[in-house]
């Protein structure tokens, strides 16, 4: 009974907002869960198992799986919590995938959420780093990303304006997504004039802080016909969480055969070989990438093989990654428009599913058949999932 093929068959999410004081975390989770169940045409009773994820210190809740039972639907059911930092949402998706692929569960509810309004996000992120070596002298997520951007610009000659193009692109896409948090029609000039947070990263380059939840139904090939929407098949998953210390990624870049973003490149190599991707720009119909800030939208394209090293700026400025382009990136508006951190990775998978099901509304990519979703987090870690319209010939893991 093992080795089932797995599809996303139901999608639910809250509108992503800066603050949701009208609900508790449990009630926020419930909004997304009920939306997913309704979308899939099933009830709580039909769910065989639940996977939930968020980052503990953003809400200060220990054992979120057991705390949120009233909202997550786990009363007298199996529930498991996973947590890997920013990659949590994609980690949730992978855990739900393996629940079903194992043959042990047919219908699995995947939940990812965050109420970032309830804490000091940067204060909580600082605690992610080693208390001896990193924490005493390190100032949270923005600074870590700024180090990457500085190095990227020095090595490739990319400019702040190149990054601003990504910031503008994703925010334009968000205008077509009623669930996105930021709805602002930015220009490159506006991004360039926004205040520096940590050079070269400006306010306009960064993702917002968001309250939101996302829930998906993962189903086995045996039951996908019971659902009203066509399945969005998970073709493969892969991840690398390579390091423990802030400075590790930079050392490794120089050491390991000149890799650029090793975690992403190693995960990419594995997942592309599983699915047979050799020309991602032409093979993928869309990509939903966890871009925590704009510069990532340049460099990740290179590590994902959409262009050569240093080719990110030219690729995005060509319009190939805009809606209407060859391979639209972040039709949902991406992380730069909504970042309820724990939910963010799962929202990437959700958008891929909606696009493959032809249900993405005004931002629908015509005839989308193959999509890439990524998660970013931890210490420059990378999670990747490939989804497709066509049922895979065999389960690929």
């Amino acid at each position: 009974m093992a080795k089932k093929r797995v599809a996303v068959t139901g999608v639910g999410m809250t509108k992503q907002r800066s603050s949701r004081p009208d609900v508790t975390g449990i009630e926020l989770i419930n909004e997304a869960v009920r939306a997913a169940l309704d979308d899939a045409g099933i009830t709580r009773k039909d769910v065989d198992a639940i996977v939930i994820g968020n980052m503990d210190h953003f809400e200060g809740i220990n054992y979120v799986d057991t705390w949120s039972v009233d909202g997550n639907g786990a009363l007298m059911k199996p529930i498991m919590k996973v947590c890997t930092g920013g990659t949590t949402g994609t980690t949730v998706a992978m855990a739900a995938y393996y629940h079903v692929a194992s043959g042990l569960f047919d219908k699995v509810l995947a939940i990812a959420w965050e109420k970032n309004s309830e804490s000091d996000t940067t204060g909580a992120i600082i605690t992610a780093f080693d208390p001896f070596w990193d924490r005493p002298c390190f100032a949270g997520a923005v600074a870590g990303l700024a180090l990457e951007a500085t190095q990227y610009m020095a090595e490739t000659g990319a400019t702040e304006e190149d990054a601003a193009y990504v910031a503008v692109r994703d925010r334009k896409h968000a205008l077509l997504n009623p669930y996105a948090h930021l709805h602002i029609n930015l220009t490159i000039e506006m991004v360039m004039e926004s205040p520096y947070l940590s050079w070269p990263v400006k306010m306009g380059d960064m993702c917002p802080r968001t309250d939101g939840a996302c829930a998906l139904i993962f189903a086995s090939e045996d039951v996908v016909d019971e659902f009203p929407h066509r399945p969005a098949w998970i073709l493969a998953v892969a991840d690398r969480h390579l390091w423990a210390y802030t400075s590790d990624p930079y050392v490794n870049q120089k050491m390991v055969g000149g890799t650029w973003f090793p975690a992403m490149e190693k995960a990419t190599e594995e997942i592309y070989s599983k699915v047979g991707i050799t020309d991602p720009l032409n093979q993928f119909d869309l990509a939903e990438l966890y871009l925590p800030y704009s510069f990532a939208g340049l460099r990740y394209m290179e590590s994902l093989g959409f262009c050569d090293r240093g080719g990110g700026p030219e690729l995005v400025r060509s319009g190939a990654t805009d809606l209407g382009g060859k391979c639209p990136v972040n039709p949902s508006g991406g992380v730069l428009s909504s970042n309820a951190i724990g939910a963010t990775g799962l929202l990437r998978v959700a958008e891929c599913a909606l696009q493959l099901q032809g249900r993405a509304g005004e931002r629908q990519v015509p005839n989308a058949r193959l999509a890439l979703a990524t998660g970013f987090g931890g210490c420059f870690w990378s999670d990747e999932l490939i989804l497709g319209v066509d049922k895979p010939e065999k389960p690929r893991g």
Partner: protein
Amino acid sequence: MENWRENQEIIVMEGRIKVPYTWAAGEVGTRYLETLRDQRKFMGTRCPRCEIVYHPPRRNCPDCFEECEDWVELGSQGELQSYTVVRRHHPQLSPLPLPFAYGIIKLDGADTGFLHILSDFQEGELAVGSRVEAVFAEEREGNIRDVLFFRPVKGVD
């Protein structure tokens, strides 16, 4: 090579996670805490399908997921379902000086119990199934500690 581990005194760094939190009570929790604060009354919500009266109130039934939109006023007395007399004071956690107790109290009109503090009791006076009543704070701020504690109902024997 000398054994550098010998007689080594391990260095220990002290730290504290300092993350401030602001937990929203939500619409349902706010109505409950407002009523507690302004009217000294406990409120529960009823599941329209299961007919269970939940206290603390729920926005949705944890079982059938129906919206629990019916508000039910509960008594400020109830039955003690369990209790434990705390014997060790915790400087950062203990809400009252010893002796105090924790209890699970099913208020009159509710189907579920809720957790609170017990005080103003004699040694041996607490019992599962006994009646307890809420003692409210004079100055109330809209949180669960607006109820100072519960105590045994006097003079019902």
